[in-house]
């Protein structure tokens, strides 16, 4: 099964973030994601849409789940997938990120998926490479496919975003997942709340057009969706919060705090989870409320949708440059 339309609906040839996507582009990506979600549940999961195309997964920061999700998405679309894990030390020794980019460019990939610990890395690469660049997470900036897969999960459960109250809880300060989700949810008409201690919220966070809560129960009151964020281990002891047990007491999601949310509220987490830190196992494993496994499933579907959408631009450019000239009778 191949999507009927091959309309290149994305304006940019890269997916660097959600901030500059339009509502129409987001909706179209989600629609395409639905198609691939259905395909992935069938027996024959493979298409040849990207046959002959090369996809490079360039990960400067290790992430088993995002990398394997992109790898699977690429393979199911028929692309040749190469995984490159780069240890930061070898890059910082004299070689600049741009040197790495030009080396990769010479290998002529069609799509580059990049994960990097610094904000702006995907943008920098997109300026120096001829291929499509997909941001698989850059520093504390954006993680657009995560927000898209979250949105697909929400839309499948709730139908639309209009008027939904989404509470994003935890380490917003360092979270690219939070930034991408805030952009996406606000664009699609949801109301967004941020719930965190003051040390884990950026200065001027309210300028995003969100509501800020420091008391988790108040923040969850009437929420349709509770989106938990991962608290990085190195930020737990003393630097940003005094201890994991204090964090869990005030900001860990358990059934008691979840009661404040709307009955039937969904619980989400981008993974990997710190059980007993930001989320209680009893909530994480409760299939009545938790959609965490579905998020992983939608991850593969939405990444297929993104690769599909970007490759349409590739095909069009390729034809216009070569075929069009032939058609005009040029040598």
């Amino acid at each position, binding site marked *: 099964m191949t999507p009927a339309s091959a309309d290149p609906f994305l304006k940019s040839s890269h997916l660097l973030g959600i901030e500059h996507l339009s509502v129409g582009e987001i909706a179209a990506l989600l629609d395409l994601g639905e198609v691939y979600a259905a395909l992935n549940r069938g027996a024959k999961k493979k298409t040849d849409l990207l046959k002959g195309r090369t996809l490079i997964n360039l990960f400067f920061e290790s992430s088993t789940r995002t990398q394997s999700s992109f790898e699977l998405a690429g393979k199911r679309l028929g692309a040749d997938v190469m995984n490159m894990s780069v240890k930061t030390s070898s890059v910082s020794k004299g070689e600049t*990120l741009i040197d790495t980019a030009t080396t990769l460019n010479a290998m002529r990939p069609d799509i580059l998926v990049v994960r990097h610990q*610094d904000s*702006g890395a995907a943008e920098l690469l997109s300026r120096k490479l001829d291929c499509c660049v997909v941001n698989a997470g850059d*520093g504390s900036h954006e993680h657009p496919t995560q927000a898209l897969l979250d949105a697909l999960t929400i839309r499948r459960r709730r139908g639309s975003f209009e008027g939904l109250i989404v509470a994003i809880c935890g380490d917003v300060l360092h979270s*690219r997942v939070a*930034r991408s989700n805030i952009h996406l949810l606000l664009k699609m008409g949801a109301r967004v709340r941020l719930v965190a201690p003051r040390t884990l919220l*950026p200065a001027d966070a309210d300028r*995003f057009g969100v509501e800020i809560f420091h008391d988790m129960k108040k923040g969850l009151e009437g929420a349709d969706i509770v989106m938990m964020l991962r608290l990085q281990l190195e930020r737990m002891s003393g630097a940003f919060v005094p201890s994991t047990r204090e964090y869990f007491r005030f900001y860990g999601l358990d059934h008691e705090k979840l009661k404040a949310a709307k009955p039937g509220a969904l619980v989400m987490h981008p993974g990997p989870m710190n059980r007993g830190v930001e989320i209680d196992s009893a909530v994480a494993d409760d299939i009545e409320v938790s959609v965490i496994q579905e998020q992983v499933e939608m991850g593969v579907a939405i990444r297929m949708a993104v690769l599909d959408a970007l490759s349409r631009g590739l095909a069009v450019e390729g034809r216009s440059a070569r075929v069009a000239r032939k058609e005009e009778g040029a040598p």
Partner: protein
Amino acid sequence: MTKRIAFRNARLIDPASGLDVKGGLLVENGRIADVGPRLFNDAEPNDPEVIDCKGLVLAPGLIDARVFTGEPGSEYRETLESASQAAAAGGITTIVVMPNTEPAIDEPSLVDFILRRAAATAKVRVAPMAALTKGFGGEVMTEIGLLQEAGAVAFTDGDRTISNARVLRRALAYANTFGALIVGHAEDPDLTDGAAVTEGEFAMRLGLPAAPSAAEAIIVERDIRLVEMTGARYHFGQISTRAALDAIAAAKERGVAVTCGVAAHHLALNELDVGSYLTFMKVKPPLRSEADRAAMVEGVASGLIDIVVSSHDPQAADTKRQTFAQAAFGAIGLETLLPVALGLHHDGRAHLSHVLKALTASPAKIFGLNAGTLAKGAPADLVLIDPDEPFTVRESELKSRARNTPFEGRRFHGRAVKTFVGGVCVFDRRAKA
């Protein structure tokens, strides 16, 4: 034989004396022999060299009191020679160079090295600063007396703040024994650790590590208290926030002998210029909010900010072609210092003479330099300025060895046409290269 150059038909601006008239100037043996409104008015001088200024501004050569070079240690970034060529093209006749080299300029023989290299290679005058603490360690003070004898004009740890107030207090008190000038950098090192930009909405959107702008005022206020205790001569190398300016204004009001400078890029750019992670916009302290930028312009216009500097900091491709967080701080600025400063005049914020004062007489006074004036007998360090000439900054046309200008493609009005050091022409824009 006496070597004479006659400048006629100039608009003479000497901020030190308040002179701003049409007239002429005579140079004899590298010094200003005569100057005034009636000079060469009636008769054509019979000198072998006559320069018709055609009504352009003739002013004292500019002094840039904050210049980083790469000599010694990082000559691939910038040498004293290449910095001096860029300076000459920017109308600057004296550069006060920072001691932040490898090794740090923290002992007399190294000050001597800078002066000898400058004499041998530089086209403009070079006034070296020395480190305030050994190796910029922030712990052990340098030999301030001996360094001063060797020719250091001031003492600074460059873009590092001395975090230990006890060390700074003693260094200030000791420096005062010798009447030495201390140049401080105001950024709380702990608050700014790892930060690349100013905290706020824009930094949050970009997801960049950020520090609050108050990190500057916190140190400014601390240092002012220490200066009041010790009576030392103290200059804030560059400030960038209204809060810092307010603290300095209050101190000046109380009669504390502190002065301050501002970098040209903090007058012309704000945090939004970082745009999509442009590393050439990564400077230290970082670009600030528009309100802070406007406060800096106001500060120069009111005179509360004493001088304008370039904070010229040449960086090579390997340190700038990185992600924003990993890229080095610094922007070159010798050739854009005057055009940026002239913007205040064109915008009607300050009189031309007032703008030039912050680039000539004021830095000369603060750093104790025999320069920055058109007075008879002074060295003939001069700049001929076309204050209205429009031009666009092209990185490829800059003389600096480094390319990291934050003003690429930006349009300005006014720049240096000719530059003279000791009566010798070191730059002529009209001359074919």
